[in-house]
């Protein structure tokens, strides 16, 4: 599906996230899918990783990779962990599918010392053109779905997320913006397809 379409892109995501995670730490991946990112972090960073995932088929793939993963949804999966259990809690391309993103992010900041969030930028230039000139809801490489089959419940831009962090008193430790070609440094809210934020309560 969309994941295979964006495979190159996702691998780059994984590398960027890999650079944010310190070796030998503990990681919780919320919505870990087949466990590719977790496996990458376990192998390259020697992290103690676990995941939460809603798809039964994906659970089998994770277990085959030797990963520990709990079958369940993100919204209810966070509350059960004690404070500061993990060094990192990761939402890679899953935050936009959570029912209550604000609660999920605040819960993640409770159970993890740092939270890494990767999401598609809804206000990339291409999307703005599609709305303004073509008059339809944008379909972009990072948001490849039509309105009737999208798993995404929430649409946000890089700017929206920065405003949210400011309002909630959340520190942005690091942010990396990506296009299909690589890292975007100039006007990311206009040119980046995806954003990865590393945030904390510090």
């Amino acid at each position, binding site marked *: 599906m969309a994941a295979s379409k964006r495979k190159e892109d996702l691998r780059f995501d994984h590398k960027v996230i890999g650079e944010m995670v310190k070796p030998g730490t503990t990681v919780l991946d919320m919505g870990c899918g087949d466990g590719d990112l977790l496996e990458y972090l376990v192998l390259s960073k020697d992290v103690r990783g*676990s995941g939460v995932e809603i798809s*039964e088929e994906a*659970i*089998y793939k*994770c*277990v*085959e*990779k*030797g*990963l*520990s*993963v*709990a*079958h*369940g949804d993100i919204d209810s999966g966070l509350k*059960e*962990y*004690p404070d500061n*259990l993990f060094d990192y809690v990761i939402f890679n391309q899953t935050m936009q599918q959570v029912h209550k993103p604000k609660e999920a992010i605040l819960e993640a900041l409770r159970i993890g010392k740092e939270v890494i969030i990767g999401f598609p930028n809804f206000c990339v230039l291409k999307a703005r053109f599609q709305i303004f000139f073509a008059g339809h809801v944008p379909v972009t490489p990072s948001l490849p779905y039509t309105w009737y089959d999208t798993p995404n419940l929430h649409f946000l831009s890089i700017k929206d997320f920065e405003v949210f962090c400011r309002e909630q008193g959340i520190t942005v430790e690091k942010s990396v913006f990506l296009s299909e070609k690589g890292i975007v440094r100039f006007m990311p809210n206009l040119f980046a397809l995806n954003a990865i934020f590393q945030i904390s309560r510090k």
Partner: protein
Amino acid sequence: MAGEGKSKKGTPGYVETRYYNMPAGEEFVLESGVRLKELRIAYETYGELNSRRTNAVLICHALSGDAHAAGLHKGDKKPGWWDDMIGPGKAFDTEQYFVICANVIGGCKGSSGPNSINPATERPYGLSFPIVTISDMVDAQKKLVEFLGIKKLLSVCGGSMGGMQALQWAVSYPESIHSCIPIATSYKHSAQQIAFDEVGRQAIMADPAWNGGDYYEKDHPSRGLAVARMVGHITYMSQQSMEQKFGRMMKKKELGYEFTTEFEVEGYLRYRGDNFVKRFDANSYLYLTKAMDYFDLLGDQKLAQLFKGVKARFLVIAFSSDWLYPPFQSKEVVKACKMNGIDVTYCEISSDYGHDAFLLEFEEETKLVKHFLSRTLKKVEK
């Protein structure tokens, strides 16, 4: 086969039940405080214990199970009750693991229970056998495991009542297991579960042949036990599986306007009930259901306290249509693991088979158990 490198999936072949007898002079103290001077445990093993003794896996059986989990007894055509899961190349790969299964204390398949001979009277115990608990079953298994020379089990696994034993192991002997695989189970029996057990017990005790549990030299309370088993079977199936299997199918096309076995589902339950009485002791049914009803690992503690000090990694499995031990009960176990930072994997397997799924959905279970076990062994051998 040896030249092929990988062996095919197979059966452990012919197996025999063996017996552990507690050495004379020792006492087995039950949770109730009663002391047993004699203790016998029937068990089977499959595969070989490795030189470092790190590959032993204990399988705990459910209410109607026994020590014969896999392979064939000489002269039998039917293999052990979990043969789909235990054997070369299977989930519990007997070329890698040393698999042990023992009949529980209170059972009727060779271990000490109400149908064993009381040394004091030289007659079967009947109701003079002390009440046993899940914790007593586990203590008896610990004696056997020690006797086999194993200090720490790679894993303890079981479904239903077997899952309760697996959970009890994690709490009673946290230093003695590396991992725990509770399947379709709960850390405490709910009112509904107790209620169904009580119906089964009342059916047995209402049979005149039961005679206060003293029937071994006479007719057994077969009707009562069969009814108990029929009720049990209803709870093991799901609405969907019953509908698919029987619907309103009838043995004859026309209604008979009489109280005979007309519906297929009636015939099936009768058949199951009648078969069960040939292989199970009614008093044992009373003892084992009572042990399950007493089971409450949590007690007055908070859920976060449940697994304090537990070190094992967990693989928890539930089935979507299991209404006897519904997935929410397994999720509570997972929650307790998470609260204590225990390494836990949980999967709710989608299945229409109800509680029976733990014996039937072996392909899905294999996908989980096989990799979980090999990962655990790797960690242990590190």
